[in-house]
């Protein structure tokens, strides 16, 4: 029988890192994700799997430690919230430029600035559109349950190593802090140094072998024609990821007349909202992006042929809604609804918004 645990999202993610055979976690405390580092320190993963855990002096240091470990072909992860992710942005750009696989987690709180420690979804632009400098993309996974907080650690690393690119979990304070049932992943062995050499020895810095060319990890190309070619290479990789890895979930979409597009906590809240709408005779479906980049553009385009209007529900002033509008391209009305700054919308508020913004307008 499977072991079912009752855990916080942050704790499930932390436990999953140990079970996924991660080699190193580097972090710095910030609410609402401090449980990740606390849980790991308490578990002493070096005794369980040999995994290294270190509280760094800053988020800057933590993400650069990830850079160093990832450049050695090891599985390295860091987690933070908005203010810390802003500090990590420089190194995230370096990591993308140098094509290093790693996992970065943002348990989002309300901003801007120091903002609030209450949950929000206002770091969508930062995660999906850049945050750091240059033409790069992150594979962005959006968990909507404690189960997905646990499962996306393995998925994130698999994608990161498959494409040699950083993966990002864009969670939020609701999913990070709430307790739910979770089935934890089975324990994977950490790769041995010999396995790392066999799998990643063609690029990772493991020490220059006598009969092999040496490996250099850098994001620098002073000659613009070389940088341009490198950027083309990245863009080809991003096109491949878009083709293969776009993930989403459809809920009650088959006969829906209206659609909610929502991820993370807002997708959970919207599930109750569409039940309320049904009681009032309105058929509303939900399209939940699981990957925010690549974005489920085609799936939304398909739905736009079927429904009369789309509501993007997110705890922000309207960020993901821009990508929904780009996908829909004016075919049907697309509106935004969301509380923000640390406030969480209720199912009733979301249901009312469907009527006010789409039906009775």
């Amino acid at each position, binding site marked *: 029988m499977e072991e079912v645990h009752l855990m916080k999202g942050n704790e499930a993610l932390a436990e999953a890192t140990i079970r996924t055979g991660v080699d190193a976690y580097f972090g710095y405390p910030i609410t609402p994700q401090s449980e990740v580092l606390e849980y790991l320190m308490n578990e002493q993963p070096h005794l369980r799997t040999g995994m290294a855990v270190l509280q760094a002096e800053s988020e800057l240091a933590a993400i650069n430690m990830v*850079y160093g*470990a990832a450049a050695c072909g090891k599985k390295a992860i860091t987690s933070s919230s908005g203010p810390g992710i802003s500090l990590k942005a420089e*190194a995230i750009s370096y990591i993308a430029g140098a094509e290093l696989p790693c996992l970065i987690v943002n348990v989002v709180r309300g901003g801007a600035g120091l903002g609030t420690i209450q949950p929000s979804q206002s770091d969508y632009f930062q995660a999906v559109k850049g945050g750091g400098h240059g033409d790069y993309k992150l594979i962005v996974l959006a968990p909507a349950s404690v189960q997905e907080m646990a499962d996306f650690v393995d998925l994130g690393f698999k994608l990161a190593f498959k494409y040699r690119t950083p993966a990002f979990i864009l969670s939020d304070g609701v999913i990070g802090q709430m307790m739910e049932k979770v089935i934890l992943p089975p324990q994977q062995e950490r790769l041995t140094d010999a396995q790392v050499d066999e799998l990643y020895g063609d690029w990772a810095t493991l*020490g220059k072998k*006598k009969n092999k060319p*040496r490996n250099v990890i850098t994001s*620098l190309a002073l000659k613009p024609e070389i940088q341009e070619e490198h950027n083309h290479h990245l863009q080809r990789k991003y096109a491949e990821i878009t083709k293969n890895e776009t993930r989403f979930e459809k809920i009650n979409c088959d006969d829906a007349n209206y659609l909610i597009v929502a991820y993370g906590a807002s997708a959970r809240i919207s599930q109750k909202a569409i039940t309320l709408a049904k009681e009032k005779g309105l058929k509303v479906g939900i399209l939940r992006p699981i990957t925010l980049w690549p974005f489920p553009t085609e799936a939304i385009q398909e739905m736009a042929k079927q429904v009369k209007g789309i509501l993007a529900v997110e705890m922000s002033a309207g960020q993901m809604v821009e990508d929904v509008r780009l996908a829909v391209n004016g075919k049907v009305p697309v509106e935004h609804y969301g509380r923000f700054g640390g406030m969480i919308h209720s199912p009733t508020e979301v249901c009312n918004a469907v009527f006010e913004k789409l039906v009775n307008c």
Partner: protein
Amino acid sequence: MEQSTISPEEIIKTGTVAFKPTKAMIDTNMSYCPGCGHGVAHRLVMEVVEEMGIIEDTIGIAPVGCSVLAYDFMDIDMQQAAHGRAPAVATGIKRVFPNKHVFTYQGDGDLAAIGTSETIHACNRGENIVIIFVNNGIYGMTGGQLAPTTLPNMKTSTSPYGRDVDMTGQPLKITEMVALLPGVAFVTRQAVHKPGLVRKTKKAIKKAFKIAEEKKGLAFIEIVSNCNSGWKMRPDASNIWLEENMLPFYPLGDIKG
């Protein structure tokens, strides 16, 4: 290669091998200005790595600064770090590969301005790494701006009337600062503008790699160097200026260990 055993007479005799370049350096033109100390410092680190037989187990970290392209000259596995973050990158490597030899190679702006926090904390944790800190008192790469180590009254492109210590503070003696930290096992200040000093610096680098290998803590080597372009001097004049101005402020010798 040790050169001290060869007499001047032998050197000028045809057929005598007076100098053999290390295999750990790539045989190519360097991007450094003629007269700059970076090239000698690179060679010394690589000679030590070759002589210790650790090429296969060494990972070097290039900074942001003139030596950003160190990996184009050092023939070992290397990583290029963001400006100032090399000690954090080194920490990440060392935590997943505790038995590899890891060194950072950093300038004064990289190590003692933007990267001060990473430097101090890697030192304080006693990471078993080697830090090679090339102090030329200026930002060479970006065209000669004020550095944390710029001497009082020294002219740079951002202190054109000389460093005003009332406005910008005194030069930061970060080497003396890190010597206070228990995690740091060996701290020394060396120079490479004269043959005798080059030999001493090499000995210090070897000692540093041994200390890190034995996991005794962090080994920190400052190399006081010139920047003839940034200082707007001929190479020979810059070396004299270094002797007369830098060394009284940054005295050579072991500080700890």
